[in-house]
């Protein structure tokens, strides 16, 4: 067990909002992503692990040792900042060597490690440049090289890609992933981007409102979200959440916003629920005006797929993902139904687990 968080909490002096009861176990060599919207407390949590923010309650253990009162420099970890935190007056080489010099490591060792780190991120020929003479991506790589040269097995990254443009972000995402795998780093990575979380993580911790919503593998998070928030946070386009009530006189059937019914083939535990259906699990078909239960608002053509935005007769907006070849147009009357994969959430947004795969009927 590399890093253990036990009921970690954080209270700010003049702030009623707190980070409460965060618990997690992060294995050695794991790519662990903390994801959540801004204000969810994810950076606060990372800074507490780094030792840059104090811990109000609970324990943080690194390699079995409680580090709550340990200074950052004694925690033996490296960190990559959102702003890269490069020293503008030092060239690339000295930026990478900064921490090693500060710790008075033997000159020969420093030379060796810096050279290796720069080589690993492909910046050897830029070693004499100042940060201002580098592009955004190169600066990012200097920050990575600094973490690599540090030789600590644990690395923390705080939104390292958020200052890059979309294309470069994808490229650097892969570089970070490869680096982590190659060096066997235990990497704790904070991001607000669900795609980054899904694509890189071994395990994801979803934070919202300063509380852990769920911890799991990317597929668990996507397939089995613990609550409404997690279901909505992952997946583009966003999951459809449709208010539904149990059909009168039935234990196994739901009326979804009076527009279509769903037979779940099992006893439904609550009268009022929300039904979560991913856009690709909704069905949509052209329909005569008389049979239609929805009208198309607009469509987004993405190439091999198309997102259809429609409004059900009851006024609920839905998103449906269809094949790129499908031909829908605005104001077209359509028939919307579900194909079978649905999730139920109770009125508080918590997931209601179903015993069997739902059967559905539109």
């Amino acid at each position, binding site marked *: 067990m590399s890093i253990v968080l036990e009921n970690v909490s954080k209270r700010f002096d003049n702030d009623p909002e707190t980070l409460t009861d965060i618990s997690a176990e992060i294995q050695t060599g794991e790519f662990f992503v903390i994801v959540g919207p801004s204000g969810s407390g994810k950076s606060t949590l990372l800074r507490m692990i780094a030792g840059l923010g104090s811990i109000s309650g609970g324990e943080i253990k690194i390699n079995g040792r409680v580090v709550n009162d340990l200074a950052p*420099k004694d925690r033996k970890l490296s960190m990559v900042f959102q702003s890269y935190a490069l020293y503008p007056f030092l060239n690339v080489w000295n930026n990478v060597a900064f921490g090693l010099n500060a710790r008075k490591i033997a000159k020969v060792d420093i030379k060796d490690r810096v050279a290796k780190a720069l080589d690993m991120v492909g910046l050897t020929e830029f070693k004499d440049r100042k940060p201002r003479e580098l592009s955004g991506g190169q600066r990012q790589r200097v920050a990575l090289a600094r973490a690599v040269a540090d030789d600590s097995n644990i690395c923390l990254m705080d939104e390292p890609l958020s200052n890059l443009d979309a294309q470069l972000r994808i490229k650097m995402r892969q570089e970070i992933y490869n680096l982590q795998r190659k060096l066997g780093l235990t990497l704790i990575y904070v991001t607000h981007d669900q795609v980054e979380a899904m694509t890189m993580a071994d395990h994801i911790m979803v934070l919202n409102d300063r509380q852990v919503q769920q911890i799991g593998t990317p597929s668990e998070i996507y397939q089995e979200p613990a609550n409404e928030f997690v279901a909505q946070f992952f997946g583009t386009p966003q999951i459809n959440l449709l208010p539904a009530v149990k059909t009168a006189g039935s234990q196994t059937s739901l009326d979804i916003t009076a527009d279509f019914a769903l037979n779940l083939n099992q006893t439904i535990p609550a009268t009022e629920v929300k039904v979560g259906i991913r856009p690709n699990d909704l069905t949509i078909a052209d329909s005569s005006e008389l049979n239609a239960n929805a009208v198309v608002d607009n469509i987004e053509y993405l190439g091999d797929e198309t997102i259809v935005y429609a409004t059900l007769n009851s006024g609920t907006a839905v998103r449906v993902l269809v094949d790129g070849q499908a031909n829908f147009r605005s104001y077209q009357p359509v028939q919307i139904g579900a194909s079978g994969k649905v999730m139920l959430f109770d009125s508080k947004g918590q997931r209601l687990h179903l015993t069997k795969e739902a059967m559905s009927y539109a």
Partner: protein
Amino acid sequence: MLKNVAEPEPESLDVTPTTPKAKSRTKVFALNAKDKYYALLFLGPSVLLLALFVFYPMIKTLYISLFLTSGLGKTTVFAGLGNYVRLLTSADYLNSLGVTLIYVFAVTILTIALGLLLAHLASETLPGIGIFRTLFSATMGVSVSVAAIFWLFIFNPSTGFLSLLSNWLHLPVINWLTQPNTAMVAVVITTVWMNLGFTFLILLGAIQSVPTSLYEAASVAGAKPGYQFFHITIPMISPTLFFVSIITLIGSFKSFGLIDLITKGGPTNATNMLVYRIYKDAFYSGNFAQASAESIILTVIIALFTLLQFKILERRVNY
């Protein structure tokens, strides 16, 4: 520079102007008639004021310094560089030059060192730190005359604070202002005290503008606070340090008010700084030619020091 980038990446954040400086400069001057008219209109008043109160006196001073003058300041006989030669061979003037240099360097070094120390201490975010920030910068609001009187009280041999302190500690009482060495120390202390408010405030601003992530990255990487101060704070604020040192250096070369009010150049010329000397030569002795020559020499000295500092600035503060 950027031109040498072997593999220019499209995401480059640095936008360097591709047009050379000279080109944009010609652009500024390529004004049409109407713009020219407005340009002159707006520049006119300041050009007029500068010409009247800066350029004309400067040229006039240079002119007078090449002549001998009557007691009323009228030029009489052309002396060429005679005034300069006489000054630079006079032990009295060289003494003034010497004490001025000692004073200037002592003041500049102490002001920067103390200002930096106070700014570093006050940059911590602690409860009540605002009180210290206000106190440390308070001398900015004190006028020279008030400061002089305040320090005269402190240095007063019979009733001054320093004498009382010496008595209490059973140390010999120093008559600060009547001995050459201590008079210099007294003047330096007073000037540093006067300078400290401004220097402190400017350096505090510079220290506070250093991104905290630099310190955080350093502390995670294992750098101790002392190392961070010398390897992050100092280089990051070096442009400001150089700015403050130039300002302080020029300011102390021009010191007049405190000297006049505290020592009047004495005792035995121990604090007879260049500017005070110019004042006495011109307005007490009526030797306007010599005073003019002294002014020109002082101007050249300040210009040389400033030039030197800019050279260093170019080389050292480049990020």
